[in-house]
């Protein structure tokens, strides 16, 4: 599988066009074989046809999906249940997988490598049965909590370590500490196997590039360069910009393949010195640099930050920051890059980002309110210097590269389920007269219980995960795991700040508002009618009438309504519960408000809610108000609302914006969108995920996604091809975009 060779010298533009065409064909094939993919696009490609085997599996972010594995690899179990557990077994099996993983060389690309398989998809029994989690899992289920238990990755490695040492240096480092710390031999064995497997994989790519150079006349020079670069990178540290891109890509590919990690951190800072040195020496043009970055981003879709302050507060925006944006602009594929917006951060970065958002319509880039996340992280008692080093690395999260384990964006408490438990308990209690005050008391109590269960789950994960499925590739690039002989999930790194997210804020706030207005104040719906509606899923004409009544109350996001007040109150209570508690073993938890694409899955298992939502429909998205909360759908109103519910401890409550295509002259559009972004951050916002979507186009695409194969949308924190999403997730995006317009629109 490679782009067709042509007999003429090709420009970078032409090569990128061919590479994009190949990516599109590969995506179509993925859609055909794997079916829907409700997560990041990733750069994964399918194995050659004769090696394919289809399996049902679960992603690193907890989504069930159909995957394709290599059938010429079978992991060696070390447990009677057929599973393999612990660092040595995981490391050895991963190395065996890499040994049979085909090499991928596209003569058009300046970089080698692509990954075809998820190592996780070979894990048939995910949890080691000796560590009994059944009771804890049942407790989590009571509040529909997505637990910490079993979570992988969602931490950011420090690529600077790898760029400095190379794979050879990393191997030496592992062996050095292995000799000292004999008690941790199992762990070091796992790390060593990962490095050896990676080196072998790179070596095979170098060989394949040399072989292909014989076949491809016009691209032979490129292929020989690829071979030379990779022969060096088997052990050596990268010396040039192109080598650095290739090295980062190898790391991305193995960590993505191993457990789905895509956290890159500060790509611009990492690459800037190589860029300067090469340009200074006359070895590199901007055109080439953009091309190398584009080749890297075609093969994986990592999360990374551009610009923002370093530890001393100085903005690090550099030439590479803009080159990365330019690469994303030319690719127009799903790219997860976040642009820093804040005091002292280069204004040009924001402007260029907004221009791309408006022009490319790919939901790229995202915008990071770094002043507020830094200020928030400091409120936990950390220094401002440390807080500034936290880098954007995942859908909605940041982490200290190589130093922080927080499994952010995994742990979710469905606030709407907590309300459901509280409401049913109150209505079943013959000793109390139902009222909103009583409901709130019970909600707070159950929220406290939900957080306590979550905390117990975090300790359980910390206790056991390293013996189940350790972080190996990420451990290699963290400060501490190799030195201490401990996995990042188990004391290897310095900071443990577990991210706990509240989900379904608007569903819960609107439910409280509806109950307060319709049941308590107006008396238009009785408690019995409400319960009947919830139990019957609003069945019959009377059920529908009650549903509409409940759904018609003033919503969160409308501005100054009962719903807005409830949202602030609920977010405040959630923040307090998470912040005031530590886990039983003393770990810190940081509150955020985000649901990721789980809004759809969490909704599927939740019954009807008092805000008129039907059973099975998605819960509200992240910290956002429900679509249609205002007649004019004004994004400014939504931006104000989300700014007011920020937990404020360094983790985010992102604002999702889906804007109509702007219609005035483009200069004013840019100013307006920039104003919207800056305004939200002025009010305390932490992150913005934005789409510029044409309503008609997205409606048409929803009917017939195949007609729009290149339509890229920012679904939540991640971006993906619209046509790769399940009908439910497509509907979820469309519902957000289609809001009624009021007068004068």
């Amino acid at each position, binding site marked *: 599988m490679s782009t067709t060779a042509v007999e003429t010298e090709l420009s970078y533009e032409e090569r990128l066009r061919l590479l994009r065409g190949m990516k599109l064909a590969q995506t179509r094939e993925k859609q055909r074989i794997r079916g829907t993919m409700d997560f990041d696009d990733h750069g994964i490609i399918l194995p050659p046809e004769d090696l394919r085997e289809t399996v049902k599996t679960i992603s690193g972010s907890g989504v069930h999906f159909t995957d394709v594995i290599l059938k010429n690899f079978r992991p060696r179990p070390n447990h009677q249940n057929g599973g393999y557990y612990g660092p040595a077994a995981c490391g050895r099996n991963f190395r065996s997988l890499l040994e049979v993983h085909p090499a991928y060389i596209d003569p058009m690309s300046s970089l080698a490598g692509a990954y075809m398989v998820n190592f996780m998809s070979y894990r048939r029994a995910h949890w080691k049965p000796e560590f009994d989690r059944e009771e804890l899992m049942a407790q989590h289920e009571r509040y529909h909590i997505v637990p910490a238990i079993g979570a992988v990755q969602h931490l950011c490695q420090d690529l600077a370590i790898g760029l400095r040492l190379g794979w050879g240096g990393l191997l030496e480092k592992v062996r050095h500490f292995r000799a000292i710390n004999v008690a941790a031999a199992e762990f070091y064995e796992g790390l060593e196997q990962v490095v050896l497997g990676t080196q072998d994989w790179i070596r095979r790519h170098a060989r394949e590039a040399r072989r292909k150079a014989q076949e491809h006349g016009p691209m032979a020079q490129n292929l020989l360069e690829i071979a030379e670069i990779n022969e060096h990178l088997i052990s050596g540290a990268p010396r040039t910009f192109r080598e650095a891109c290739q090295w980062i890509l190898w790391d991305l590919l193995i960590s993505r393949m191993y457990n789905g990690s895509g956290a890159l951190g500060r790509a611009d800072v990492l690459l800037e010195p190589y860029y300067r040195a090469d340009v200074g020496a006359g070895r590199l043009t901007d055109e080439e640099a953009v091309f190398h970055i584009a080749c890297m981003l075609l093969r994986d879709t990592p999360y990374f930050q551009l610009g923002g302050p370093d530890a001393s507060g100085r903005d690090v925006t550099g030439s590479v920051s803009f080159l990365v944006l330019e690469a994303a602009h030319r690719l127009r594929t799903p790219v997860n890059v976040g642009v820093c917006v804040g005091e002292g951060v280069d204004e040009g970065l924001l402007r260029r980002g907004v221009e791309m958002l408006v022009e490319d319509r790919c939901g790229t880039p995202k915008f990071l309110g770094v002043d507020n996340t830094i200020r928030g992280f400091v409120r936990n008692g950390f220094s401002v210097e440390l807080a500034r080093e936290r880098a954007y690395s995942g859908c909605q999260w940041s982490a200290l590269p190589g130093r922080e384990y927080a499994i952010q964006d995994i742990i979710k408490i469905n606030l709407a389920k907590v309300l459901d438990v509280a409401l049913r308990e109150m209505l079943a209690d013959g000793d109390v007269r139902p009222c909103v005050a009583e409901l709130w008391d019970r909600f707070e109590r159950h929220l406290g219980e939900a957080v306590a269960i979550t905390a117990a789950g975090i300790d359980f994960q910390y206790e056991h995960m390293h013996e189940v499925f350790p972080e190996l590739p990420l451990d290699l690039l963290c400060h501490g795991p190799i030195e201490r002989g401990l996995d990042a999930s188990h004391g290897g790194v310095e900071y443990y700040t577990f991210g706990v997210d509240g989900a379904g804020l608007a569903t819960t706030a609107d439910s409280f508002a509806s109950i307060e207005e319709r049941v308590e104040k107006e008396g238009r719906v009785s408690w019995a009618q409400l319960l009947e509606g919830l139990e019957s899923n609003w069945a019959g004409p009377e059920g529908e009438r009650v549903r509409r009544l409940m759904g018609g109350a003033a919503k969160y996001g409308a501005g100054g309504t009962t719903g807005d007040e409830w949202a602030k109150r609920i977010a405040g209570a959630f923040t307090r519960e998470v912040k005031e508690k530590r886990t039983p073993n003393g770990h810190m938890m940081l509150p955020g408000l985000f649901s990721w694409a789980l809004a759809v899955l969490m909704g599927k298992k939740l019954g009807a809610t008092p805000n008129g939502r039907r059973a099975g429909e998605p819960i509200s998205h992240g910290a956002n108000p429900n679509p249609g909360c205002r007649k004019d759908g004004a994004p400014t109103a939504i931006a104000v609302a989300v700014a007011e519910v920020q937990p404020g401890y360094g983790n985010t409550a992102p604002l999702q914006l889906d804007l109509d295509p702007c*219609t005035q002259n483009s200069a004013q559009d840019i100013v307006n969108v920039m104003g919207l972004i800056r305004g939200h951050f002025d009010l305390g916002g932490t992150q913005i995920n934005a789409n510029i979507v044409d309503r008609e186009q997205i409606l048409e695409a929803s009917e017939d996604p195949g007609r729009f194969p290149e339509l890229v949308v920012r679904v939540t924190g991640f971006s993906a091809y619209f046509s790769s999403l399940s009908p439910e997730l497509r509907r979820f995006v469309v519902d957000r975009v289609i809001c009624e317009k009021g007068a004068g629109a």
Partner: protein
Amino acid sequence: MTGRVFDIQRFSVHDGPGIRTTVFLKGCPLNCAWCHNPEGIRAGPELSFDREKCLACGECVRACPMAAHSLQTDGKGLAHVLDRGRCEVRGECVSVCCSDSLEIVGRSLSVEEVMREVMADRVFYRQAGGGLTISGGEPLMQAEFTAALLVAAKKEGLHCCVETSGFGGWEALCRMLPLTDLFLFDWKVTEPVEHERHTGQSNTIIARNLRELYARGARIRLQCPLIPGINDNEGHYEGIEALLESMPNLDGISILPYHPLGTAKLERLGRPPAFAASTTSAIRQSARFLAGRLARRGFRVVGTEGDRQEGGQRRAEDGVPRREGIKSDF
């Protein structure tokens, strides 16, 4: 001081520069058949009924003392029937409606109430150079309230636009003059008799007010709606050009092609559709043609709405602005 408001729209980006909040005042002396805000024409409150949303639950039938609502059987079952002859727009029906299908359009709001909503977005006005736009209906019909609102907005340092048909007393316009940063002034039909035929009023007063405002140094942007079969003709185009020639210091001109948003609103207000254009693509083309023609003659043309349809395409004039230091392009 209260005014009759039928809508307040935040993040309004078509009614003047930057991010704005547009306050729509109810009541207009003109009666343009193509009006896209027909709920702004009559001064008094009106009952809007959206049949699509109605559940025919009958709550309004029980609530209405005027017996304006009834349920009648049609072929498919019960259907809600509204007798507007009996309706006094009292609102009992709205307060019991569970489905939001009934709504009273037009509320009486104080300056403070309007300003509370307007100021919710102040941070965005500051960031994007926007502010308040007063539109309608016709602000000149509520001159006192408009002036009071402008005074309050100016006190907060907001940029203020007034969107007007120009039909009204000069004194009213004159009061707004020092408080208004930009007038969005309609120029609908050039020929006075035709103007009267299509809008119910001659444009003699409008033209006089426009010239008077211009003479006093007001910042004015002309807004020309382009309506198929009404004013998409050479005579009007030349009239616009002559007007622009005679007022070289205008802030610019916007060409607004007809869109049929008003039709559904009319139906909800129980009024017959007054204007129908089967397709809008031709008029959008005409708008682009006219905008191009005016731009070539050196007039400043501001955002033509027809451009909306071009969304997603790369625009030729869009270069790729870069930071210094990025030298090459593919």
